[in-house]
């Protein structure tokens, strides 16, 4: 069975500090991977997607970047956090074909102070 793991579970960071959030998918080779941001009490906004290692497409940047260093790993990062980066970050995966449904990880809650 496929499992999706996100780390850390939660972070409290200072404005201007760097950030790195991770996501790992196990049990599925060559998945499409996605990053979403959810403001507290809000809807989900897709940030990035990746269909293969080393290839990442930006949907909405929000002064963030993403990388896919391995087939099963997706990283979200920034060198300088803003207050507006606070929220819930969700990683998701889907099969590589068609309009397949996306499966979500447990999320990382980020608080920027």
């Amino acid at each position, binding site marked *: 069975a496929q499992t999706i793991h996100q780390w850390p579970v939660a972070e409290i960071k200072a404005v201007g500090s760097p950030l790195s959030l991770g996501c790992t998918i196990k049990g599925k080779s060559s998945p*499409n991977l*996605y990053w979403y941001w959810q403001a507290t009490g*809000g*809807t*989900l*906004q*897709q940030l990035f*997607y990746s*269909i293969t290692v080393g290839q990442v*497409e930006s*949907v909405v940047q929000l002064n963030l970047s993403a990388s896919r260093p391995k087939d099963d790993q997706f990283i979200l990062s920034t060198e300088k956090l803003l207050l507006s980066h606070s929220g819930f970050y*969700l990683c*998701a995966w*889907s099969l590589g*074909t*068609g*309009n*397949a*449904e*996306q*499966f*979500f*990880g*447990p*999320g990382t*809650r980020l608080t920027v102070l």
Partner: protein
Amino acid sequence: AQSVTQPDARVTVSEGASLQLRCKYSYSATPYLFWYVQYPRQGLQLLLKYYSGDPVVQGVNSFEAEFSKSNSSFHLQKASVHWSDSAVYFCALSMEGGRALIFGTGTTVSVSP
């Protein structure tokens, strides 16, 4: 432009009562539609999906949804709710071969005893 509208931000129902959550979409091509549920401080779980065929689709936990092309709608229903159904429900539209998933603003469901 493509969009998903959930007109009800919050719904309160009594345990054992029926539930209907509304979802309207705007998309010129064939829609692929999903309902997800989010429990507090967790990721999203897929309830059901519509790709084509029978407009009434069955999902997990006795949820079902009905697709209407003429009304551009995909409403979610459950005949008898349980307190554990209290959560936020998101309707979503898949486009561009599944690489873009547009979410509605969500409906918070509170089930009272």
